[in-house]
């Protein structure tokens, strides 16, 4: 079998470690990189290095940030009595886009999955309980925790686990509703979503 020169093989191997990248994609990326002019490549390398050097996890909410605490945790215009728990930073971005949520976040960086050896200790949960005490929250009492983990079995299990953890504390714990995409014709909603929406119907 024909082998690439060693530096090429090395690059392909490294790229293959990235999530969602198989051998073929790694090859394609490697060849793209080799064809890219050096100055453009420098931009990419700097961006990669900066991410590692300048981005830290917010010590309050675990969000990715350049300053700690992050802008949301430091903001006085946010409602610090409502915490929305999400799996990943990008789910937080999705909630932020709505512009209707004025509370703060807690990012878990994952969801429970015994098959992938992710138990409660592997999630960024340790700093959630302390946040709920007013003395650790600028004197603000947390009144509600919204569990906005994904609608997968792993996301459900995670929400359920945290729910059990928080229930004894006597605050309101809610789970976001799963349902129909707004603005789409009923005809175009897939059957699983439709089925869920029907069984989670509410009285009006």
């Amino acid at each position: 079998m024909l082998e690439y020169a060693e530096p090429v093989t090395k690059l392909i191997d490294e790229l293959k470690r990235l999530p969602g990248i198989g051998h073929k994609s790694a090859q394609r990326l490697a060849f793209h990189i080799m064809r890219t002019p050096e100055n453009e490549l420098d931009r990419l390398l700097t961006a990669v290095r900066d991410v590692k050097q300048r981005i830290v996890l917010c010590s309050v909410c675990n969000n990715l940030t350049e300053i700690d605490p992050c802008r949301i945790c430091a903001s006085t215009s946010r409602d610090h009595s409502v915490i929305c728990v999400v799996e990943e930073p990008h789910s937080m971005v999705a909630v932020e886009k709505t512009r209707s949520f004025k509370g703060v976040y807690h990012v878990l960086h994952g969801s429970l999955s015994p098959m992938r050896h992710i138990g409660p200790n592997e999630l960024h949960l340790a700093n959630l309980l302390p946040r709920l005490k007013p003395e650790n929250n600028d004197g603000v009492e947390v009144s509600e925790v919204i569990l906005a983990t994904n609608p997968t079995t792993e996301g459900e299990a995670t929400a359920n686990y945290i729910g059990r953890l928080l229930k004894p504390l006597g605050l309101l714990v809610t789970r976001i509703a799963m349902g129909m995409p707004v603005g789409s014709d009923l005809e175009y909603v897939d059957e699983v979503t439709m089925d869920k929406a029907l069984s989670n119907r509410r009285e009006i």
Partner: protein
Amino acid sequence: MILDFVEVDNFRNLSGKIFWGPGLNIIHGDNGQGKTNWLEAIHLLSRTKSFRTQRLQETIRFGQDSAFVAGRVSSGDDLQRDLRVTLKENTKSIAVNGKREQLTRYLGQLQVFSFTADQLDVVRGMPEARRHFIDRGVASLRPAYVRTVSDYNRVIKQKNRILQDNLEHNRSLVELQDLLAPWNQQLVQLAAEIHEARVDYTERLNNELERSLFEPAELHIRYSSSLDGKGDLSNYEGLLNERLQLRLPAEAAAGRALLGPHRDDLAVHLAGRELRVFGSSGQQRSALLLLDLAAISVYNSWHDDRPLFLVDDVDAELDENRIRRLLEYLEGRTQTFITTSKRSHVEGFISRANVYEIAAGQAVQPELNRSTFSAVAAND
């Protein structure tokens, strides 16, 4: 629904187009010529899966990198849909009327029930085959049920992993229960949905079962829950919760999930005796046919539409007497596709059927019964 035609390219040894008749379609040819491949193509178009292999790559003709199966389905007065499954290396894409479609919306556009050798496990194999049979039936009524079952299976896998790992860790039962709780909570909810759906479907099958179409003895079925005799099944969630509490030490010791519908079965009895154990191979085949026919009737009365019925290698699986009763029963009920290498076994039906002679994967004009072949356009 009626499958008007199927067009195939590089799928196994097939290429070309066949127009089908709305009633009985007899696919005749010597072994190895590709008659079953045509059934497999129809099955693929319906379920996007093969009944012979898990690895669809194998079905692409050797030396080619892609294959497709396409077909036109008519239902109602003048509603027509063009379905297409394209296989390329190890990917599969599906389309309706030329537009890509997601699986949950695609399934059900062409509903097929099939009698094939691999299905015989339903009447003589382990409970898993019977659970699959019921689950397929429920999904033929409500496609979203597929998601319930796959979520349930995932929860069981996750729970099994916790219990397996625990064999090494030996946590206290309280700790273990804490880890299991988020999964057990979903397990109970999904299990209740599955239990209810399967019991309901079994009831429907029972109502449609033509108990003695092939045999003098009567066929009876009953959903057999692993919780039977353990308490009040009408409060399934409550009972399962209670059992999960009670059996935690047993699950911890076994290292796997012991409770839930993944341990259930469908009891099938012929003349009061368990068919799997006491039935002859002929009786087992008759029973499977009856279950298939009942599933078709249930589908029919739920959707007010007829599914397709595929019977592979009819003469190898059934004797002449059973074939005659089956074909008489199906006449005028549902679009049927059967393959056979022995014309003699279906001779009596040839004048009322569309007959296709298959040689080297192609449908060729038969020497006999030209008149019945009018709808065929091979090598289009």
